[in-house]
């Protein structure tokens, strides 16, 4: 950093005149008083800008000072976790902030040793966790990642919600040789196409194929006579992939199902009048949507007002993040998914009871699936570090690879992609608003075993669906 400043100074010197050289000298020597002669040389505006320049210089100097001060000597009983989620932008509200909240909660509880068994030991392998939060909404994601690894020398990085981020980061993580746990992004491409022989990259959440395969199974379990399907999905990677997986699964599971219409409005459109009209005129038995956040709430409110939910059975694969906020506005009978057995679909276990309570006590709302995914990723790291008995990267990777660990959403096994990709069971439910207590609940919950809705090792997701779910074990 210092050298860089010198270099910049040098460059500035060359291209400046005699006078500005003097001024630069003043700026960087941080002289606060001026001689008579210097003052005469300046007119008013220049004095003003000199003050400004001093102000800027102070900023520059303090930022340099910050560099050195943050490179404090690392305690050997400390473990640094880089945590990257959306802290600003459209995805921050529904995903990024709940995930960051969960990270804060987990880090504090782990340091205090208040997480229930089997995680009741303090710290990660005895070392206290220091989190470093970074905003995923950045144009220089890779440079930010390298900064975490090299400057902040983190021991591991947990992060990334957008599949685009994961695609860019995964190869860099392998290059930088740093343990990186992707916690939420859904695209199956990460280990199927981009990093086919992972060593440092892990993903502790199941990929998005599971969500839509399970959605198709739930639809046919509850509506065995469904004849036609329609889709309304955002016109970007997540929406396109979700619809492709869902419609392909339906075609395999029930060959006489026809697709009436595929609507792809653009993301953050907010107005779905014409798409809802198209869905209404087609009168499909099933309407599938992977909408999330504000777009989903808009769809529910606009579609609800026009009886879309009465005419067709609507499936919202990522509906769980909004049910608490929508309350009575979400029509009863809507099929809701949570990208895994999370939130109201989570199994009954001590970890989940603790997580639900600790989270809602602290933040005043129930944890949604991004919170669960984050907790799951941090617990995965904890399980591996505790098992390895150290925070040494090689040992942790060996312990995490192919492991099985408990989380608030049940047992997670790192079964795919040579032990780097998690699978877990999943569940879907039907929405019911309890008018008396004012609570949003899910009823008729059906669970699908991990091996039933995830492709076996070595098979690409879409090939697996098209092969008629070859190798699926749905006992």
């Amino acid at each position: 950093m210092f050298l860089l400043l010198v270099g910049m100074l040098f460059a500035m010197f060359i291209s400046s005149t005699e006078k500005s050289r003097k001024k630069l000298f003043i700026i960087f020597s941080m002289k606060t008083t001026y001689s008579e002669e210097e003052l005469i040389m300046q007119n008013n505006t220049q004095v003003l800008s000199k003050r400004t320049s001093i102000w800027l210089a102070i900023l520059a100097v303090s930022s340099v000072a910050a560099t050195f001060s943050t490179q404090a000597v690392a305690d050997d009983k400390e473990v640094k976790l880089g945590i990257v989620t959306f802290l600003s932008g459209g995805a921050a509200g529904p995903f990024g902030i709940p995930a960051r909240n969960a990270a804060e909660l987990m880090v504090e509880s782990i340091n205090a040793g208040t997480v229930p068994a089997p995680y009741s030991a303090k710290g990660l392998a005895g070392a206290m966790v220091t989190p470093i939060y970074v905003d995923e909404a950045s144009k220089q994601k890779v440079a930010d990642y390298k900064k975490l690894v090299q400057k902040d020398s983190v021991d591991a990085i947990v992060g990334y919600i957008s599949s685009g981020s994961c695609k860019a980061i995964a190869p860099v993580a392998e290059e930088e040789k740093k343990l990186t746990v992707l916690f939420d992004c859904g695209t199956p491409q990460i280990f199927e196409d981009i990093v086919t022989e992972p060593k440092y990259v892990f993903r502790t959440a199941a990929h998005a194929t599971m969500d839509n395969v399970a959605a198709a199974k739930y639809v046919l379990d509850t509506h065995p006579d469904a004849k036609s399907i329609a889709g309304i999905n955002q016109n970007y990677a997540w929406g396109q992939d979700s619809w492709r997986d869902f419609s392909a699964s339906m075609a395999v599971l029930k060959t006489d199902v026809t697709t009436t219409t595929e609507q792809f409005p653009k993301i953050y459109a907010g107005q779905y009048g014409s798409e809802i009209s198209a869905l209404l005129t087609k009168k499909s038995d099933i309407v599938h949507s992977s909408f999330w956040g504000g777009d989903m709430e808009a769809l529910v409110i606009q579609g609800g007002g026009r009886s879309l939910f009465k005419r067709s059975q609507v499936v919202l694969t990522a509906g769980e993040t909004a049910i608490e906020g929508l309350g009575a506005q979400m029509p009863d009978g809507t099929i809701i998914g949570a990208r895994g057995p999370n939130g109201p679909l989570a199994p009954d276990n001590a970890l989940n009871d603790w997580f639900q309570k600790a989270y809602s006590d602290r933040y005043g709302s129930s944890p949604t699936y991004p919170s669960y995914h984050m907790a799951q990723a941090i617990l995965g790291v904890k399980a591996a570090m505790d098992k390895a008995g150290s925070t040494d990267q090689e040992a942790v990777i060996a312990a995490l690879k192919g492991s099985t660990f408990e989380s608030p959403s049940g047992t997670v096994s790192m079964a795919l992609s040579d032990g780097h990709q998690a699978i877990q069971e999943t569940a879907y439910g039907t929405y019911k608003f309890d008018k008396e207590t004012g609570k949003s609940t899910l009823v008729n919950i059906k669970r699908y075993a991990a091996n039933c809705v995830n492709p076996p090792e070595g098979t690409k997701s879409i090939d697996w669906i098209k092969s008629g779910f070859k190798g699926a074990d749905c006992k």
Partner: protein
Amino acid sequence: MRSQLDRTEKLLIVGLPILIALGFILPEWIVNYIQVSLGTGLVALGVMIQMRAGLVSFGQGLYFCIGGYAAGMAGKFLGISDIFLLLACGLIASVTIAFAAGFLLRRYREIFFAMLSLALSMILFGLLSKLEMLGSTDGFNLPSATYLGWAPEGDTAKHALYVATCIPTIICAFLLNRYLRSPMGYIGEALRENEIRLEYLGTSAHRAVHIKYVIAAGVSGIGGVLWALALGHVDPEMTNWTTSGQFVFISILSGTGNIVAPLFGTFILEIVRVYAVELSPNTWQMILGTLMLLTIIFLPRGLWSLIQEKKHAKKSGGEK
């Protein structure tokens, strides 16, 4: 006179070996920020040379993206990974499209130019977001660069790519400086001051704008290729208006006084952002915003005026 090197050009020539040397001395994460800043800095340069003519391009991300995607698609579909070919692809693609679009844009000025350039860039954004073949909004990854058959690995690859980023950037900056000092370049300034008088002097304003637009697109395309190679990934966010807005922001922040200003400005902004995120991960935008406000209030001609204003005072009349 014009054949002589002016101060900026000397600075660029001296600066190149220093810049390359820094790549070996500094910690890698800073080098990485320098590298991406050079890529985006080139696009800011493209915005800046248009600003000299009073044209604010709010859609320069268009050519940044075209450059990146041209290189990416050459890698993905044709298997090309040679950096010289990729740069050529990016340059040809952006120049060709700019040449065509220039016939439309050269007829507009001020806010109409800004809005039309913005509209063009958002059309590409919409198109790319719909294209599943190109990974939609997730984008796709680029191959590692090779150099005339030489395919380095590990640290060598990082250094090679850094050097390969520095050289085209400095060459572009050098040529642009030449362009701005040429009669063609000065027409730009005349264009900003009085377009009618310019026409009476016997020059076509349309043609001057067209040439400027194509040149700016060419540099931005090269910037896009270099940036995409440094990141290893392209996505439609490159042509979103927020990206284009950032280039305008950089040009305003650093000032249009000198060709080096946007390159420095980009890097300074990047470093300020990094520390702002470190200082307050939840409200880092506020720090950046405050900085921009202060710059606009106290340094209306950008950071570069800290260095330049004295020169004007000395040569009373401001003639260069």
